[in-house]
């Protein structure tokens, strides 16, 4: 496996990672400018507290996302759970709810004097629901916004899994649980780890939920520094601390991935994996799915629907336009396509030519994902306004910003897909006299398509709801659904914000569904 990678591939991958790391360069520039003050901030007690609080939130959200995402994935791919298709789509959908909308909705539903309290007040005389501000609220909103990462990636891995491995274990007399633990889990471990990583990075970078829930995380502190002091040194130092935490998370993920080799022989087995009969576990399984979907999807939809209802009963004209919706879908498709395309060279390098260099490049490309959107936006403002004026405030730069923010999501898809394709197949192609590029198109590409689509879909959904970079980098007048939601929530006009939020969810739903159907049929097809 220690073949030397072709030089052009290394160059292209390095160039891509270099461009994606621009925000890091910017942060270093700003920190160095700060001189001694930077050190003062770095060694302050307040910073230590922030780091601890951030760590607690990341651990809580990631742990819960795994505990929710993995069972859901298994139930919807491998068992005879009733309405599997529905659960699979519904459980993935919360991914399209922006965390700031989730937080708003949960405050309305579970906050003091919220809808839940009012429901309980009458019949049960409950005077106080548990406090939602702080950790509980931030944890809830972020878990809901992120567990679908684990769910989607793990579902894909479970569907893709060669059932003959499990059959062999069962044939050797191992119990179902042992088989899951010893055979299934190691194979899907990279996907679980990749999902957990995306959850952790999202939590590190989130501002919407933590600000509404008043939880002190590093990202909130970065925003507050920008908003209060107009001094860019402390914000840059805090953001670099975030990068350091990200590096730690990346090391942990690499460990968690394990050393499992997960190549399979072909594109899929001639038969789908056998379905596990749930028997008496059907009822608890349904209760579990209902609770998750109820809290993560139905509560937000109900609150949004309630708000939207107020807008419809209002006398004022709605003034609804489809333009932001069209813009959102268009720009998100572009971002998804671009992110997948540029993730391929890095993914190929990492999956096919493992070395210290390829690992470093791959890990470095994750840095942008844990940075708050405002940092990425301001760094690109700085570089583009001063060194690339023709692209400043164009859609091209906006797409580039999305690629920087969401590159790891595309990479997670392409790398996992590439790893599941045996290099032997590619070697066979080359042995038959095909050029490497030809082999890629004829052999590798068809096998990795489902993985690439999964990665692209994640980028698409993340872009649909992206706000901070969109606000600062879009061409003037380019409205998206996310900017529409912001425009109304910023003046407390929730009834008007609800409509674009519902449209955002509605437009993303078919994609989530189609993606599921597509990957399912692809991996089920005879190889």
């Amino acid at each position, binding site marked *: 496996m220690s073949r030397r990678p072709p030089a052009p591939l290394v160059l292209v991958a390095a160039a891509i990672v270099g461009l994606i790391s621009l925000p890091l360069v910017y942060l270093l520039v700003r920190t160095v400018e700060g001189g001694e003050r930077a050190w003062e901030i770095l060694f302050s007690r307040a910073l230590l507290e922030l780091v601890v609080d951030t760590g607690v939130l990341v651990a809580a959200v990631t742990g819960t996302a795994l505990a929710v995402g993995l069972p859901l994935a298994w139930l919807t791919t491998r068992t005879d759970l009733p309405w599997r298709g529905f659960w699979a789509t519904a459980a993935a959908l919360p991914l399209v709810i922006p965390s700031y909308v989730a937080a708003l909705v949960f405050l309305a539903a579970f906050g003091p004097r919220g809808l839940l309290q009012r429901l309980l007040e009458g019949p049960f005389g409950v005077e106080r629901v548990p406090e939602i501000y702080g950790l509980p609220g931030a944890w809830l909103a972020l878990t809901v916004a992120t567990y679908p990462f684990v769910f989607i990636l793990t579902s894909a891995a479970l569907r893709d899994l060669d059932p003959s491995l499990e059959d062999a274990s069962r044939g050797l007399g191992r119990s179902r649980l042992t088989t899951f633990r010893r055979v299934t889990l190691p194979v899907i471990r990279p996907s679980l780890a990749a999902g957990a990583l995306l959850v952790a990075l999202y939590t590190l970078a989130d501002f919407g939920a933590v600000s509404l829930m008043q939880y002190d995380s590093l990202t909130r502190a970065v925003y507050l520094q920008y908003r209060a002091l*107009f001094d860019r040194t402390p914000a840059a130092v805090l953001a670099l601390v975030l990068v350091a935490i990200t590096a730690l998370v990346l090391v942990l993920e690499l460990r968690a991935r394990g050393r499992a080799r997960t190549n399979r022989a072909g594109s899929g087995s001639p038969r789908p994996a056998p379905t596990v009969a749930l028997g008496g576990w059907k009822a608890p399984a349904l209760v579990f799915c209902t609770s998750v979907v109820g809290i993560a999807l139905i509560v937000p939809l109900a609150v949004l629907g309630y708000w939207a209802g107020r807008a419809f009963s209002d006398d004022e004209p709605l003034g609804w336009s489809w333009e932001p919706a069209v813009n959102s879908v268009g720009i998100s498709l*572009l971002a998804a396509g671009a992110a997948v395309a540029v993730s391929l060279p890095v993914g190929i390098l990492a999956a096919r030519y493992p070395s210290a260099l390829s690992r470093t490049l791959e890990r470095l490309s994750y840095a942008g994902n844990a940075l708050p959107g405002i940092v990425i936006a301001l760094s690109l403002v700085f570089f583009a306004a001063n060194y690339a004026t023709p692209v400043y405030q164009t859609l091209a730069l906006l797409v580039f910003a999305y690629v920087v923010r969401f590159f790891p999501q595309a990479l997670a898809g392409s790398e996992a897909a590439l790893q599941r394709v045996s290099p032997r197949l590619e070697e066979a192609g080359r042995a038959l006299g095909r050029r490497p590029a030809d082999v890629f198109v004829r052999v590798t590409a068809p096998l990795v398509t489902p993985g690439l689509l999964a990665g692209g879909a994640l980028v698409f959904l993340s872009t649909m709801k992206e706000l901070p970079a969109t606000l600062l980098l879009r061409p003037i007048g380019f409205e998206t659904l996310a900017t529409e939601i912001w425009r109304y929530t910023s003046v407390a006009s929730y009834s008007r914000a609800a409509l674009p939020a519902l449209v955002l969810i509605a437009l993303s739903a078919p994609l989530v569904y189609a993606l599921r159907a597509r990957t399912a049929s692809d991996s089920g097809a005879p190889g």
Partner: protein
Amino acid sequence: MRNLLVLGLAVAALAGCGSDDDNGGANGGKLTIYSGREEELIGPLIEKFEQASGIDAEVRYGDSAELAATIAEEGDNSPADVFFAQDPGSLGSLEGEELLAELPDDVLERVPERFRDPDGHWVGTSGRVRVIAYNTEALSEDEVPDSVLDLTDPRWKGKIGFAPTNASFQAFVTAMRLSMGDEQAKEWLEGFAANDPKTYEKNTPVVEAAAAGEIELGLVNHYYLYLVKEEQPDAAVANHFLNGDDPGALVSVAGAAIVDGTDDEDQAREFVEYLLSEEGQRFYTEEAEEAEYPLIEGVEPKEGLPALDSLEGPDVDLDAFGAELERTLEMLREVGFTT
């Protein structure tokens, strides 16, 4: 990567977004405004300006502080001609970076001295007053304190809401420091903190919480009430104005500035002039839901609001707030309101 850029550019061109003419400083006769004020609130005002002047205005909406940071990063290449901000702090930060042009005296002199930059780099365009929003079911108006100094009374323990990380609260504390002295201001903050006030992200949630009865009193700017009432007309919340000379009764402004080095200086000036014209100021009295105070002589505030003259507020210089902010934040940290 080049492919990506080409792809993006191609789409931009296809979509006809005209992204080729609004870069850098040269933007073909269009006035570019960076606005930290919400589109829902001042969009109609900008339309009125376009009709009155025949000038095409392009507006980038965002958070005031983030837009200030954006202009600072853009430096000499900023496409912005005008910065229309929510607070003197954002404007002051750009003045500190020497990115604002001087405004002509005849524009500046339209507003009272206390509402403009003494060096003439920015001018207030509308006023907002710190008030106490109270829940009308729990309290009658005469029970609401007339001075913020009474908020340390144990009667209000756990019943007050405020937004410690919001620029408007920080300005309020700066005003108290400057008028009472640091020592007494800190003493008040400590007493206030001992009353376990509840924290919120910004002003609107404070008013909403007061309406819901989550708190009884909220420290906010006066105009958020009208936004909340617009969304929930029967919300049980009202404003109580503090005594005119109370150290907490700060009158602050939203304001505008011309970005230095703009190639549309004439148009930019025309816009700022319009904001301070009688028509531009009447907007706050006659059209805007949120009932901010007009600042020029001869235009009265919306009915039901106390006259601006009666709200002396603490005798402080809004322009000094930028330099004082650091000390205010330090004090808020010491008291434990922020990290």
